[in-house]
């Protein structure tokens, strides 16, 4: 190769430049995808905020949000001392109260839940190197449901009062992931052990939920079922602040691990030889993803499918490099969930369907279509 003639060297250089250009273009495509998802969220959010019994135009919505932000900063002191609710009820007009007090919390919860669940799903798929993985693969949803059921049917929980369901769901969700964490510490964290342990826990918690439901009052059982559908209807600003703290803490940490997740993708031994601490990466990412998931579903209930579908859809478009895939699937997941919730609110208005049902109704056909249309193996 070193002795190649100058003519050959030149074509070699040309080829190299061409590949480099194609690689740069590929990266450009990823960035465009991420930006488009952002724009999409912005548009859907605007449209979603106009929907409801009180008519407000899209432009008015954006203008209310735009003017509200400096107002909030201006009165930060008041908000600190009296709370956000007190603030907008005192300072804002009716239209502004409807947007800031009622519609925006739901929209922001949709965005946060979409981002969190999709990123948790992407991370889980990387951690267990399996396309079927989702945030719920390792039993976290069943555990959270059990916690919620315990609170709803028996009124038993770690706290009392209005937060009992949330705290129960959160604690049990984390409990399940710590059991898996413990097991994988004990018997090396391979994807197989983790998945099998997760499935076992899922059955255990489902059975325990089943027993409670079997003996529960009809009304309470109905409430449990509703909780499990997953909905954004319970959104409020104080819940959002808790949720965003968890997300803001975990997601940057997951993103810092994206190189190591990429390395896991080429096999454990290869990753080890690249200097990656495979088991630690797996456990850290899994715990972070669980924390995000628990922090979301304790407020929303188990919204399904976003965490499975968003990573796949994004992988089809921008490939598997986690440095781009994690933000892309998060933003795209937010757009998907927000879109689904908008449909859930309008399709049989004035009845509002739980968004968890719509994500599956909408997501499954779209997903199947993409799988069928894609000729090549992308996985």
């Amino acid at each position, binding site marked *: 190769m*070193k002795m190649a003639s100058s003519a050959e060297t030149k074509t070699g250089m040309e080829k190299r430049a061409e590949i480099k250009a194609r690689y740069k273009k590929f990266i450009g495509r990823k960035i465009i995808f991420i930006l488009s998802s952002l724009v999409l969220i912005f548009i859907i959010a605007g449209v979603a905020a106009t929907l409801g019994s009180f008519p407000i135009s899209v432009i008015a919505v954006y203008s209310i949000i735009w003017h509200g932000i400096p107002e909030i900063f201006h009165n930060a002191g008041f908000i600190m001392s009296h709370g956000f609710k007190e603030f907008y009820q005192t300072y804002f007009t009716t239209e502004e109260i409807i947007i800031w007090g009622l519609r925006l919390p739901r929209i922001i919860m949709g965005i946060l839940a979409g981002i969190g669940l999709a990123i948790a799903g992407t991370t889980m798929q*990387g951690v267990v190197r399996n396309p079927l993985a989702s945030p719920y693969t390792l039993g976290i949803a069943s555990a959270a449901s059990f916690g919620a059921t315990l609170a709803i049917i028996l009124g038993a929980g770690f706290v009392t009062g209005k937060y009992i369901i949330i705290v129960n769901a959160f604690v049990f969700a984390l409990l399940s992931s710590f059991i898996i964490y413990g097991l994988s510490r004990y018997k090396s964290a391979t994807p197989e052990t983790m998945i099998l342990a997760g499935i076992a826990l899922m059955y255990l918690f489902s059975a325990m939920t089943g027993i409670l439901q079997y003996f529960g009052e009809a009304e309470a059982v109905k409430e449990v079922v509703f909780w499990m559908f997953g909905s954004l209807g319970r959104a409020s600003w104080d819940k959002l602040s808790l949720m965003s703290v968890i997300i803001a803490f975990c997601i940057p940490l997951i993103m810092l691990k994206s190189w190591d997740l*990429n390395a896991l*993708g080429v096999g454990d*031994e*290869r990753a*080890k030889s690249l200097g990656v601490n495979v088991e630690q990466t797996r456990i850290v990412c899994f715990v972070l993803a669980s924390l995000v998931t628990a922090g979301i579903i304790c407020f929303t209930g188990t919204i399904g499918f976003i965490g499975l579908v968003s990573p796949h859809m994004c992988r089809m478009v921008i*490939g598997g490099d986690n440095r781009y895939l994690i933000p892309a699937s998060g933003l795209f997941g937010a757009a998907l969930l927000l879109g689904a919730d908008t449909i859930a609110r309008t399709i049989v208005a004035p009845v509002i369907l739980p968004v968890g049902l719509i994500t599956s109704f909408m997501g499954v056909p779209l997903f199947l279509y993409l799988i069928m249309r894609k000729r090549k193996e992308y*996985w």
Partner: protein
Amino acid sequence: MVKLKVKDVEFSYASVPILKNVCIELAESEMLSVVGPNGAGKSTLLRCIDRILSPQKGCILLDERDIKKMSRMELAKKVGYIPQSTTSIFSATVFDVVLIGRRPHISWRSSEEDTEKVLEILQMLNIEEFAMRDINELSGGQQQKVFIACALSQEPDVLLLDEPTSNLDIRHQLEVMDIIKNIVIEKGIAAIMAIHDLNLAARYADRIIMMNSGKIFAAGNPASVLTPENIRHVYGVESEVMDKRGRPHIVPIRPVGKPLKLTV
């Protein structure tokens, strides 16, 4: 100069001994083949050298430093390992797979220099036309080249290869072996290769180690190791060894008796 020294290494899985008193010295720009029947400990030896497994006894010195005292990242900059098993890979372009090999050298952002390195290696292995294809679409032979490229982009001094030619057609076998030989000569990398094909080992290796039941049975140049007696002892196979341009050529004939089992 001695690059790598394996001293009295012993390794057991749950008290079943796999390696016993293994000693190896490897010089720069040397290609060493490790042969031996299934279960002889070839792969275990490679895994010990890359510290994927930790031997219970003995030590492994790289540039006279004990690898146990190096951090994983430090070791990753010096030793590249190409395992045999190709677990199903995530969807990734060839370019990205090779870029992953830069992991020991980058923290979060890949630089222009990394991109150039990847391009250089792709070109060196003649796989640049696949650069933007998904690795799962490639044939086994092409994939093996990509994995070699991935390990090379680590810029290691020592390359460990576990059965690099298994599942490849004869053309790809030769291509892959030529690539490895070229790297060893041009880049001064030392390579240790576990391999089943005695003829490929004979043809490409500078030195051969023949292992049996975790011990080194014979070591030396191909002609001195690959003799009918040794093959009969270790594999339990009667064979004919011919001379092809100074290198032994082995024609296995039939299994005979029972292969010799070395006891501890």
